[in-house]
C-alpha cells in the first residue's frame, strides 16, 4: 500500500458523450412529464393551484440536491478534504445545475410575480385585512410578490455565482496544475460558506416556510439544509454509480469513496432528525398557538400517517441500517438506501408544503374572505395525494438532470489537484 496513487492507466476520466446523454434523457423526461402535468393541472379546475403547490415541492426537492452538493464542494475546500477529491468534479456538476434549476423555478416564481394569488396566501388581498390577520401585517413588506421575486433572483445569483466560481477555478487547475488555486479556493470557501448558509436559510423561509406565513420557526433553514444534504449525498452516490456503469472512473472511485458518501448520508439522516425534533419539541412544549398550529395539522387527522411514515422511513429505518459498515460499502445496498432516502426526501418536502394547500372561505363582518392555510378544522384537511404531485416531481427531476448533464464535460476528476493522489489511495481505517 502507499499513501498516494496515480490515476490508473486504464481509467477513462473524460466525460465524452456522458453529459449530452444525460441532458437528452433529462430533457425528454422534463418535457413529457411537464405536458402531462399541465394537462392534469388544468383538470383540477383550481387555477393551477395544485399544480403550483406540486411545483414548489418538486422544485424544493431539486434545488435542495444542488444545495447539498454545493455544501460538499465548499466543505471540501474549507477542510482540505482528501477523500472527496475524486468525486468533487461530479459534486461540482450537481451544484452547477443551479442555473438550470433556477430557470426551471421560474415556473412558479413568475406566476407569483405576475399576480397569481393561489400559491402564497400572503400575496392575496385578504392577507392585508387587519381584522382577519392582525399578526401578518408586519410581515407583508417582506412577503410581497415584488420583493419576493427580487430575493428569488438574488438567491439564484448567489448560488450560481459560488458554484460557477468553484467549478471554473477547478477546471483552471486541470489546465495549469497550479497548486495555488487550491489555496485560493480554500480562502474563498470560508466566506462562501457563510454566504451559502444565510442564502439557504432565507431561501427555505421564502419558498417553503412562507406557505404558512403566520407560523414561526427559527431552525427551519437548518432543518431544510439537513434534509437537503441527505438528498444531495444520495444523488451523488447514484450519479457516481451511473458514471462508473458507463465505463468512466472505474478504477478511481472505489468502495472506500462510496463508504464515505454513505457515511455523509447517514450523518445527515440523523442531523435532519435532530433538527426536525428540536423544532418539534420546542413548539410542542412551548404550546404557543401561533407555533403549534403548524404541527396540529401534521399530528392529527390524515397527515399524522404521513408524519409517522417520515419518522420511520426517513429516519428510523435508514438510521438503523446505515449505521453498519457493510450497508455503505456494498454498492447495491447503498443504491437501495440512496433511492429510498430520495423518495423520503421528496416526501419530507411534500409534508412541509402540502398541509398549507387547504385554504377556506370565511365570513368576517358580513364579507366573504379567504382565510389562509392552517385556519380550519383538521377534519377538513386531507392529504389529497394526486398523480399530479408525482408527474411534476419527475418533470423537475428531468430539469435537474439537464442541469447536471450540462456540466459533465471534460475531465470527470480534477486530474491536477494536489490531493488527487491521496484521494485515489484513500482507504477507511
Amino acid at each position: 500500500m502507499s499513501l498516494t496513487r496515480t490515476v490508473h492507466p486504464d481509467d477513462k476520466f473524460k466525460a465524452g458523450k456522458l453529459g449530452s446523454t444525460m441532458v437528452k434523457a433529462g430533457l425528454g423526461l422534463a418535457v413529457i412529464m411537464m405536458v402531462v402535468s399541465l394537462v392534469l393541472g388544468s383538470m383540477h379546475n383550481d387555477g393551477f393551484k395544485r399544480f403550483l403547490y406540486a411545483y414548489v415541492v418538486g422544485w424544493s426537492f431539486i434545488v435542495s440536491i444542488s444545495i447539498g452538493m454545493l455544501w460538499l464542494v465548499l466543505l471540501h475546500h474549507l477542510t482540505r478534504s482528501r477523500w472527496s477529491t475524486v468525486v468533487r468534479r461530479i459534486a461540482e456538476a450537481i451544484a452547477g445545475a443551479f442555473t438550470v434549476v433556477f430557470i426551471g423555478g421560474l415556473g412558479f416564481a413568475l406566476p407569483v410575480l405576475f399576480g397569481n394569488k393561489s400559491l402564497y396566501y400572503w400575496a392575496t388581498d385578504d392577507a392585508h385585512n387587519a381584522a382577519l390577520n392582525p399578526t401578518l401585517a408586519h410581515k407583508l413588506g417582506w412577503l410581497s410578490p415584488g420583493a419576493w421575486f427580487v430575493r428569488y433572483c438574488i438567491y439564484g445569483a448567489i448560488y450560481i455565482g459560488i458554484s460557477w466560481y468553484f467549478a471554473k477555478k477547478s477546471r483552471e487547475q486541470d489546465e495549469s496544475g497550479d497548486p495555488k488555486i487550491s489555496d485560493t479556493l480554500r480562502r474563498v470557501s470560508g466566506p462562501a460558506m457563510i454566504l451559502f448558509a444565510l442564502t439557504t436559510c432565507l431561501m427555505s423561509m421564502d419558498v417553503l416556510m412562507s406557505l404558512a406565513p403566520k407560523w414561526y420557526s427559527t431552525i427551519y433553514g437548518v432543518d431544510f439544509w439537513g434534509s437537503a444534504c441527505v438528498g444531495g449525498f444520495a444523488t451523488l452516490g447514484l450519479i457516481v454509480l451511473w458514471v462508473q456503469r458507463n465505463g468512466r472512473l472505474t478504477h478511481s472511485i472505489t468502495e472506500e469513496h462510496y463508504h464515505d458518501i454513505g457515511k455523509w448520508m447517514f450523518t445527515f439522516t440523523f442531523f435532519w432528525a435532530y433538527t426536525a425534533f428540536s423544532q418539534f419539541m420546542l413548539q410542542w412544549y412551548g404550546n404557543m398557538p401561533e407555533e403549534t398550529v403548524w404541527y396540529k395539522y401534521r399530528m392529527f387527522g390524515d397527515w399524522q400517517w404521513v408524519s409517522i411514515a417520515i419518522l420511520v422511513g426517513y429516519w428510523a429505518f435508514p438510521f438503523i441500517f446505515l449505521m453498519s459498515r457493510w450497508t455503505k460499502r456494498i454498492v447495491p445496498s447503498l443504491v437501495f438506501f440512496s433511492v429510498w432516502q430520495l423518495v423520503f426526501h421528496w416526501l419530507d418536502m411534500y409534508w412541509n408544503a402540502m398541509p398549507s394547500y387547504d385554504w377556506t372561505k370565511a365570513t368576517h363582518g358580513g364579507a366573504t374572505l379567504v382565510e389562509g392555510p392552517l385556519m380550519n378544522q383538521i377534519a377538513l384537511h386531507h392529504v389529497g395525494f394526486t398523480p399530479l404531485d408525482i408527474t411534476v416531481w419527475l418533470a423537475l427531476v428531468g430539469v435537474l438532470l439537464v442541469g447536471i448533464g450540462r456540466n459533465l464535460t471534460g475531465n470527470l476528476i480534477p486530474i491536477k489537484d494536489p490531493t488527487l493522489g491521496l484521494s485515489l489511495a484513500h482507504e477507511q481505517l
Partner: protein
Amino acid sequence: MATETPPPDKATEPRPDSENQTGDASGKHGTAGELYGYLAEYDTPGELVEAARKVKDAGFTEFDAYSPFPVHGIDPAMGIKRTILPLLIFGGGFVGATSGILLQWYCNAYSWGWNISGKPTWSIPANIPIAYELTILLAVLTSFFGMWGLNKLPQVWHPLFRSDRFLRVTDDGFFIGIEAKDKRFDVDKTKALLGDAGAIDIEPVYYDPDPAKKAMPKWIMAFIVASTAFALIPFAIAAKARNSHSAEPHVHIFPDMDFQPKFKSDTANDLFADGRSNRGEIPGTVARGWLEEDTTFYLGLTAETGGQWIDGFPASYPDSPSLTPDLRGKPFVVDAKLLKRGQNRFNIYCTPCHGYDGRGQGMVPTRVKEQGGVWLARNLVDKAGPVVFLPNGQLFNTITNGFPPTMMGYGAQIPAADRWAIVAYVRALERSQIASNEDQAGQR
C-alpha cells in the same frame, strides 16, 4: 520499566544489535531470561504493511505490528478480524436509550408523579432529550473503555519496552514483533523471514529474568488499589451515615460560608430587647423621599386640609426615589404612552373581575356563575353610573383601598403612578363604550 532500570551487567555484556547479532537466541543478551520473541524495525509504514502481510502468509498468528499512528490497510495485511467494538457501542447506546426512557417512566410516571398544570406525567416527546443524552453517554463510554479493554491496554510492563530502539515507536519507528510462543517460531527461520521482508534492524527480546517484572509493576498495582480504596471512602461514609444515628452536628466543609457574620431576617436574636434580629422602622421616622406628603398624587385629594377628590389628574409626579427615574419630578401628561401603560396594568390586575371591556364580566364572575354562585363585579362603563360619575381622585382611592366586601385594595401591588395610569385608561374605556355624538363626529 526496563529502560529506566538498565540490566545490572549491561556494561560488561553489550546487548546485541544489528551489527553483531548472531541470531543465537541462547546467546549473549546480558539479562537473558526467557526469549520473548523477535523485534524487527521497518523504515516506512508501507514496508510495515508488506512485512506484516509476509509474516501472516508464513502462517504466524502470535505477532503484532507497532506504529506511531494508525496505518491504512494494516488490519487485512495482518489478517486481523474486524473489531466487535461497533457492536458493543451499539449495545451501549441501546442500553442508554432504553434505560433513559425507563428511568423517566419510573421517576415521573410511576414512582413520583407530579401534576404540573394538568400535563400528563408520561409523554414521550418530553423524554427524548434525556434518552438521547444517555444514548450518547453510554455509547461513548463503551467506545472509550471498550477500545482500551479490547486492546488489553494499558500495558506498561510489556517485554518490548526493554528494547531501546522500540522507544521510537511513538515517534517514527515501525515495528513487527513475533512472539516465541507461536507454533511456527524458529530462531533462524523467523529471523530470516523478517530480514527478507526488508527489516532495517532485527533483535531478539527477552523477558526480564526477574519474574516480578513479567507482570504489572507493583507501584501501578499499589496505585490502583489505593485509588480504588480512596474512591470508596465517600460511599463508605454515606453508608455509615444511613445506617447509624449521630448526635454530632453537621460537618461544615466551608464554615465561613455556613456561618457568616450577619443576622438573617426573621431569626431569633438575644442582642436586642425584643429578641428579634429584624430591626423595624423606628417609630415616627420616614426614609428620605418616602414621606408621600403629596396628597394629590398619593391620595387623590386636593392640597388643602380636608380636601376634596380631584377631578383631573395630579399636576406633576413627586420627586421621590419611589418613582422610576423617568417620572421623578416630571409634569403629569396624559398621552398615548400613559394610556398604554394603564391598559397593560388594567389587563393584568383588573380584567379577572371587570373583564377586558370593563363590563364586569371577567373570568372570575363568569366561572363563579358557571358553578352556580354569584360574584358581582362592577360594570365600570355603565352609563347609569356610579363609576362613570366618580371623580378621578375617588376612583384612584378605590383602586388603592378596594371596595369591600369583594374588592380588596391594590395599593400594595400597584405603585401610585401605575394606579393613575389605570385611572386614565378606565376613563378612556368609558369613553369608548359610551361615546357621545360629538365624540363620534370627531372620529370622522
